[in-house]
C-alpha cells in the first residue's frame, strides 16, 4: 500500500492532507491520488468489519476523505474516473436519523459509486424523482432506524413499484433493527448490517 492509502488507513488526518497537497503541487495525476485515497478507505472499511476500528473511526475516515476530496476536486476538471455505478440513498419518511445514512454515503462514495443523496425524512416521491432524474441509477438504498417506520419502507418500495421503476432498480435497506424479516416485509432485495456491508451488498446487487 502506498503512503497516502496507508496514512488514511491509519487515520493520520494531518499527514494525509499535507501529503495530498504536496503531491498535487508536484503535478502527480489527481486521479491517481484519488484512487490512493479510495484504497485507504477500503482498508478502513476492512478494519471496521474485523472489529479493529469503531464507529468513531469511520466518522473520522469520512471526514478525512471529504477533506482530501475537496482538495483534489478542483484539479480533476472533468477527468473523472469510471464510476462503479449510480446509487440513490435516503432515510425514509417519518425517520430523521442521518448519521448511518451519511456513513453509507461516505463509504459508497469512497468505493467510487456516484451517490444521489435525497436526505432524511424523505417522502416516496423524493426517491422516485431522484430515480427518474437519474435513469442510470441501478440501486436504491433506504435507511430506517425506527421499528415504527417499517411501513414507510414498505410504502416507499410500493410507490417505486407503482411508478414502474421496480424492475430497473435493486433495493437495499439498512439501519439498526433492520433484518431479513424486514426485507421480506417491505419487499426489498437485501439488507446491510453497517456502512461497510452496504458497499458489499451494493456491489453484489449491481453484479447480479
Amino acid at each position, binding site marked *: 500500500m502506498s503512503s497516502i492509502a496507508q496514512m488514511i488507513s491509519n487515520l493520520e488526518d494531518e499527514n494525509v492532507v499535507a501529503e495530498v497537497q504536496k503531491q498535487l503541487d508536484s503535478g502527480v495525476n489527481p486521479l491517481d491520488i484519488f484512487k490512493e485515497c479510495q484504497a485507504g478507505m477500503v482498508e478502513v472499511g476492512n478494519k471496521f468489519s474485523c472489529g479493529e476500528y*469503531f*464507529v*468513531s473511526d*469511520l*466518522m473520522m475516515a469520512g471526514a478525512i476523505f471529504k477533506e482530501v476530496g475537496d482538495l483534489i476536486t478542483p484539479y480533476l476538471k472533468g477527468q473523472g474516473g469510471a464510476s462503479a455505478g449510480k446509487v440513490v440513498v435516503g432515510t425514509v419518511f417519518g425517520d430523521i*436519523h442521518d*448519521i448511518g445514512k451519511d456513513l453509507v454515503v461516505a463509504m459508497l462514495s469512497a468505493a467510487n459509486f456516484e451517490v444521489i443523496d435525497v436526505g*432524511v*425524512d424523505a417522502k416516496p416521491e423524493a426517491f422516485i424523482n431522484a430515480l427518474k432524474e437519474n435513469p442510470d441509477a441501478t440501486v436504491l438504498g433506504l435507511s430506517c432506524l425506527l421499528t415504527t417506520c417499517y411501513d414507510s419502507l414498505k410504502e416507499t418500495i410500493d410507490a417505486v413499484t407503482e411508478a414502474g421503476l421496480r424492475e430497473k432498480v435493486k433495493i437495499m435497506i439498512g439501519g439498526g*433493527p433492520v433484518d431479513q424479516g424486514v426485507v421480506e416485509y417491505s419487499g426489498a432485495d437485501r439488507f446491510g448490517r453497517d456502512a461497510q456491508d452496504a458497499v458489499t451488498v451494493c456491489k453484489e446487487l449491481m453484479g447480479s
Partner: protein
Amino acid sequence: MIFIGEKINGTRSKVKEAVINRNIDYIQSLAISQSEAGADFLDINAGTDPDRETEDLIWLIEKVQAVTDTPICIDSSTPSAIKEALKVTRVTPMINSINGDQKRLEEFLPFIKERNCSVIALCLDESMSGMPKSIDDRMHVLENIFLATRAAGIEDSKVYIDPLIMSAATDQKAGIIAFDCIRTIRGKYPQAHITGGLSNISYGLPDRSLINRTFLTLAIAAGMDSAVVNPTDTDLIQSLFATELLLGKDKFCRRYTTASKNAFKKK
C-alpha cells in the same frame, strides 16, 4: 435514583422470540432479575406488529406481574394498546412515552391523568422533521409539553423528561450537550424527573459499560435522577453508589457501605 429496567423489549431479538413462542420462563427470569437488582419500574415493549401488539403487551404484563410487584412502564406508541394494558396493570404504571406532538398529547394525556400515571416525555416533536439539534430546540418542545400536562392537571413530578442522549462516536459533543441540557432542564422544571437511555452515548464504541456508567456519574452531577438501564449491571450500581456518596447524598456513607457488603448486587 429511579431505575427503569430496559430488558423486556421486543425490539431485542431474543425477547421478540420469547414473545412469539410464549416463552414464559425467559420473560419471567428477566422480570425477576431486574426486580431483584432494584429496578423501580420494568419497561415492557411488545415490539410486535400492530395487529398483535395489544395481545402481546397484555400477555407480557400478566406474566411479569405473576412474579413481581415492581410497577410496569408500558412502552408503546399505540393509544388503544396502552388503554387495554392499563386495565390489567395492578400497580399504577408509567407510560413510555409522550413528546411535543399535539396529536399524541391529546390522545395520551386523558388516560395518564385519569390513572395518575407517571410519563416519560421525549424532548422531540414527532410531527416535525428533524431531531432537535440544540438545547433551545429541546427546551422549546418541553414548553409545549408542560403547557399541555399542566392544563390536563398532571403534576410536574409525574413527568420524566428524556433529553435525548446522542452517540459520542458520531458527535464528540454529545456528552457535553447532554449535561448542559440536563442542567438547563433541572433549573426550569425543578419538580420534574430527568431520565433517558444510557446506551446511546456509547453506541459504536468498545467497552460500552465503562462509558455508560461514567456518563451516569456526570449526568447525576448535572441533575439527572432516573435512567433507563440494565439494572443487573453491578458495575453500574457500583458507580451509582459512589457517585451519590461523593455528591453528599449518602448520610454517613451508609448506603454505600451496606451496598458494598452486598457486592453491589442491588441498587
